[in-house]
């Protein structure tokens, strides 16, 4: 553990204090509905610095050295799990991956018992994905360690929404005032829900688009009791007109056909993002997708891999965003750069960024 390493220069330390300040008091990252605009900006700016780290030949800083982060995944995942793992390792943390298959979960161990076990084994922070909405809340209300939601059921996926915001900001230099269209199975999408909170907090205009059977019921009701401040449009050709960001969601092939959707072919006909449809969006529009993609269903291959696609940027930005989230949350809960808490503190980010090599040179 690096403690009280001399700050290389006052300026970085200042920026850093400014970054972590909005997160003071935060215990978990469960969804973006309880994030202030300042907290989100702190993540995006911290991610900028993490991207600088990622641009180096040695993409590591020891900010979380000696910390143990557990990735607890009850659901299949490639990009999110690997992204969190890489992010934690880049910060020098020890990472343990636990998946439901092959663990005691298969023997019927309850979620809370599994978490107690992991805590007893020394976990300092839990990153969890679960197929049931709210599972991280259940854990957070019982556990004494910070919990990061890496996707819960059809509820929330806050780090995805943060990396989406980051990617949009990277392309447009701003988020406020942009028009974002999210298309597809909104009712079952944790990505759409978290993006509705995050992007609205940052001042974007958000519209949900999809067939009525895949829209959250209250967004269709005349009673105006929808929880989100977003537009709703069932007609993609109309909704896509002039938008800045086009974000089709994955259609869950396995559970839709024959009931909510008459056929995937019909879905593709009405809702696939094709070149022709994309041409109706703003000329500078970008195409995003949380992945994995069903090419030919919700998105055509030439759009998915075309010039306007930022899908790969989303993936690489995901690492920087998760480094930022892990760093800020550890700083907020374990006594940040200034070592507020009695426990071991998180090493100042400035030191890490201003190089381990600076310290090395001195020694």
């Amino acid at each position, binding site marked *: 553990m690096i403690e009280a390493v001399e700050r290389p220069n006052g300026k970085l330390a200042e920026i850093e204090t400014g970054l972590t300040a909005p997160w003071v008091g935060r215990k978990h990252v469960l969804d973006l*509905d*309880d994030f202030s605009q300042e907290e989100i900006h702190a993540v995006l700016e911290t991610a900028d610095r993490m991207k600088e780290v990622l641009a180096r030949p040695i993409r590591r800083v020891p900010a979380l050295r000696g910390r143990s982060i557990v990735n607890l995944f009850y659901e299949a995942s490639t990009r999110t799990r690997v992204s969190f793992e890489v992010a934690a390792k880049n910060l020098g943390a020890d990472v343990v991956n636990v998946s439901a298959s092959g663990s005691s979960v298969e023997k019927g161990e*309850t*979620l*809370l018992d599994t978490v107690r076990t992991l805590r007893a084994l020394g976990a300092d922070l839990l990153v969890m994905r*679960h197929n*049931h*909405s*709210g*599972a991280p*809340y*259940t854990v957070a*209300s*019982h556990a004494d360690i910070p919990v990061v939601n890496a996707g*819960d*059921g*059809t*509820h*929330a996926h806050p780090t995805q929404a943060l990396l989406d915001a980051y990617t949009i900001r990277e392309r447009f230099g701003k988020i406020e005032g942009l028009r974002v269209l999210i298309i597809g199975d909104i009712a079952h999408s*944790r990505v759409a*829900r978290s993006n509705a909170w995050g992007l609205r907090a940052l001042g974007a205009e958000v519209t949900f688009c999809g067939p009525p059977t895949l829209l*959250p*019921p*209250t*967004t269709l009701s005349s009673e105006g*009791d*929808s*929880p989100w401040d977003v537009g709703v449009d069932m007609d993609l050709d109309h909704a896509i007109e002039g938008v800045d960001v086009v974000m089709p969601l994955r259609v869950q092939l396995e559970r839709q056909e024959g009931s909510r959707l008459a056929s995937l072919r019909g879905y593709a006909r009405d809702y696939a993002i094709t070149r022709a449809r994309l041409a109706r969006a703003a000329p500078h529009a970008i195409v995003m997708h949380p992945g994995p993609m069903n090419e030919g269903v919700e998105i055509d291959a030439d759009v998915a891999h075309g010039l306007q696609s930022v899908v790969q940027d989303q993936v690489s930005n995901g690492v920087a965003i998760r480094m930022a989230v892990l760093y800020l949350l550890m700083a907020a809960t374990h006594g940040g750069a200034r070592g507020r808490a009695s426990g071991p503190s998180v090493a100042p980010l400035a030191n890490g960024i201003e190089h381990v090599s600076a310290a090395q040179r001195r020694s």
Partner: protein
Amino acid sequence: MTRLRIHGGRVVDPSQARDEVVDIVVVDGRIDAYVGADFGGEYDRVVDATGLVVSPGFIDLHCHLREPGFEDKETISTGALAAAAGGFTTICCMPNTNPTLDTANDVAYVFAKAREARGARVLPLGTITKGQRGTELSDASELSQAGVVGFSDDGRPVWDGRLMRYALMESLRHKKPVVNHCEEPEVADGGVMNQGRVSDLLGLKGQPAAAEDVMVARDIELARETGGRLHLAHISTEGSVRLLRMAKQEGLAVSAEVTPHHLIMTEDWVLGGNGRNGRPYDTRTKVNPPLRREQDRQALIAALAEGLIDVIATDHAPHRSIDKDCTYDEAAFGISGFETALGGLMQLVESAQLTMTDVIRRLTIEPSRTFDIAGGSLAVGSTADLVIFDPTASWTVDVAQFNSRGKNTPLDGHTLQGRVVTTIVGGDVVYEWRNVP
């Protein structure tokens, strides 16, 4: 001869339209006389009810005692005592035990356990279909002779309209109500809470209110067609109230009950009772039918005040902690309701949405009439089943103090007003509040 005197209480007994401060003399377990405070005589015991309300013992037409089969959730013994602590002197238990109450033998077992228990009297319902499987009718005649007070498949609605129709036809013979939990399973589609703003917000699968309304409508039409005796369990929606109004206006043999939790809580409680800063995904709020919208709650209160809904029933559904310490999807449906029923209902009296007489009527004489069972009245000559409660005492719900094994209620930690002080069954004091001030 045992003589008991209940002194100085406000006796509220809607069955006799009585609401006055008067003493009650109980001799050998029966109401013997109403007397003035200065009336003399020798008594084995005098219970001081000064400042308190004396009411006929409450009758609960819908509860779960879990025995046989799920004794780690509740037993007939713990359930009967918990009921007494809630002011209930007669409780009707659902047959969704293991085995289910399909035969005279199953019913005899419950009666045998009930005789050993201290607290409320226990009267079982039998199943409508064998094993609640919804495929083959149970022998209603056998069950009726064994002493069941009604028929229900409880949490498993009888979705086969043909069987429901035959069950209602059988009720013409045994005269006992067929109690259906109204939920059309395809429309409910596995929802774990009410479908609406909160389910959208939390990403939980919702059951539309229409899932209940559709089956209420079907059952009312079947009751009309057969002339059978239908009782609608725990209605929870504005739509059910609308349909019930229609059925009653047409004079059909349809009755209905509502639970205290649907009268005092809404879907917002799933957010933790206190918005997003509470404890979202509070599994203790998971109950079926689910907690609904505020407008449903208001419609239920209005229907009760109007007399459209006949009865308040708890749907007391005790569970183990492990059944609730999990995700919302995994959690069991049900709220432990006996011991908070009165305190919850008194909120509605306090806020002047219901009168004291309304509440007591729906807990006493109306359930007695609805299931045609004894009790619910303190008329001279009746069995002395009564409850004495303090309508203004504030107390904080602490589930650790529950007599029930089921500690599952979102009211834990909440302050309620209205506390049962003494419960008397057949002239015997079966429950006394320990912390009487």
